[in-house]
């Protein structure tokens, strides 16, 4: 459904994304500079640089694409079902839930990749369930800021539990420390292939649900009046979010604020209709993640900042700006 309102922002976002993807292949923290990388793209004989570009930067770019889409879509979905513009997987403890689940598995002796995806998704599902039960509490669901406060408290609790586990288990701590802050560094294509099936499944289900889900914006009764089942829709949306966030967390660790900033940006570009928002999230999510990732390689070169730190630095001011706005943008 590419209509007039969507076309221009969509074209612009796709162009920018393309440029960013190329930049992500060219720019790095190491000593393979832009020029050498560019030569590799034109088939120059430079084994060192070729390895850096094709085996290090290409996989992390692909992972960035998948993670960005998954987080942005999840944010938009959570906002639609909770009717709250501040709902976001990172803020509401969904990511923290999946991080804790992975930490538990690791300390029980499982190794990193074999159980990570499924456990992360299960943890995300439990996190989602907690969040939604909070939004169903009287009074909280209607107040965006209280929901975020509840989510923040919940997130810190889960993060504290994760830290506790890591303190008690040195082996798990070593394996997980680089992961728990959220980063794309050192991710391989195999990691991506492990989560791609479940993400693709979530995407397919979402495609069938987009239209009914968009009607939730009109309120529960109006949605039912249009022949939908709001309760069922919410449940399915939660499962989709769990698959996406769990998958993204399993490869990149918990990354906050992407799910908040991107849908916010998308709505301001193409209006409040969920269908347009979701389409526009597809290029905008990876755009933001990759830009942040490129920055994370450059800011403190030759070492790297973790991506999660950077998205938090960029995202927190947006959250504060949204909350401070004279009137909170409503989804209802």
């Amino acid at each position, binding site marked *: 459904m590419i209509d007039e309102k969507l076309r221009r922002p969509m074209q612009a976002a796709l162009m920018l994304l393309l440029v960013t993807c190329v930049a992500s292949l060219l720019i790095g923290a190491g000593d393979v500079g832009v020029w050498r990388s560019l030569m590799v793209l034109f088939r120059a004989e430079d084994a060192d640089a070729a390895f850096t570009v094709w085996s290090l930067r290409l996989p992390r770019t692909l992972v960035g694409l998948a993670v960005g889409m998954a987080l942005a879509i999840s944010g938009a979905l959570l906002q639609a079902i909770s009717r709250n513009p501040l709902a976001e997987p990172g803020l509401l403890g969904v990511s923290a839930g999946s991080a804790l689940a992975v930490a538990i598995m690791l300390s029980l002796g499982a190794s990193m990749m074999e159980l990570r995806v499924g456990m992360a998704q299960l943890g995300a599902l439990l996190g989602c369930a907690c969040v939604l039960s909070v939004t169903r509490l009287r009074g909280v669901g209607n107040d965006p800021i209280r929901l975020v406060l509840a989510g923040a408290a919940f997130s810190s609790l889960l993060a504290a539990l994760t830290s506790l586990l890591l303190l008690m288990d040195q082996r798990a701590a070593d394996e997980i420390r680089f992961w728990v802050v959220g980063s794309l560094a050192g991710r391989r294509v195999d990691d991506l292939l492990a989560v791609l099936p479940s993400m693709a499944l979530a995407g397919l289900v979402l495609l069938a649900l987009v239209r009914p889900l968009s009607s939730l914006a009109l309120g529960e009764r109006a949605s039912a009046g*249009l022949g939908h089942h709001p309760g069922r829709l919410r449940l399915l949306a939660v499962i989709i979010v769990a698959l996406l966030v769990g998958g993204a967390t399993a490869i990149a660790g918990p990354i906050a604020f992407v799910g908040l900033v991107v849908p916010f940006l998308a709505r301001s570009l193409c209006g409040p209709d969920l269908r347009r928002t979701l389409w526009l999230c597809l290029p905008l999510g990876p755009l933001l993640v990759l830009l942040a990732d490129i920055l994370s390689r450059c800011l403190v070169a030759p070492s790297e900042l973790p991506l999660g730190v950077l998205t938090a630095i960029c995202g927190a001011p947006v959250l504060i700006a949204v909350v401070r706005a004279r009137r909170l943008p409503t989804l209802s």
Partner: protein
Amino acid sequence: MNNPSSLEAQPLPDSNVPCLPYEVEALTLRHGRYTVIEELQLGLPSGQLTAIVGPNGCGKSTLLAGLARLHAPAAGRVLLDGRDIRGLPSAELATRVALLPQEALAPEGLTVTDLIRFGRQPHQAWWQQWSEEDQRVVAEALAAAGLESLADRSLDTLSGGQRQRAWIAMTIAQQTPVILLDEPTSALDLGHQLEVFELLRKLVGEGRTIVMVVHDLTSACRYADHLVAMRGGQIVAEGSPGEVVTSQLVRELYDVDCTLVEDPVTGKPLLAGLGRVQ
């Protein structure tokens, strides 16, 4: 007074909207343990505007929710064209009965056309794209509600009456023979109320069956063909406003004394000299 009334009115001869008998049979609706409506019988005349009136808490909105299948009956049935609505697939019900709930919410920035397009959802399967038929119906709904010049305006920039007309246009785009409205005018000033009622009269004139819950008895008398007066979950009186509205009924419903006079212009009953029963 409680018997299921025969379906008096037939749709206009030139109407293309089918007539769907809509009946309530021994309907009991509960909120948790609290019984709101018990064993209620009601027939809604096709092609007419029915107003459900009564004091706060009399069960009129609950009855409307029951008619729309938002509220599952504890006992009894709601029959649409002779079939229990519980047996109908939701999407099919939504092509026969449209609902405008009281708390009609719209996200900020949603335009009139965006809103009306939602009305097409019951007619679209998930794989179907927006069709020319959908486009035509939305344009017709815009025209029917007199909103052509406001099509691309955002809802939050409209007056209350215009906004309510846009919501009604959404139900028009749903192309249902029956439209249910829960207090469509409760938040509107006098001029905007008339704007909405006149639109509803026009839709009834095209052969639709409309059922609305209203607070204002005088408006109900003025615009409804059929009046259902409720108190305590029971139907107290039912029939054409001119026949059933008496000062005794007003006292019974609202504990208010009044004198009924005839509106010199419309000939409909008017409530005068209102005062609470001492």
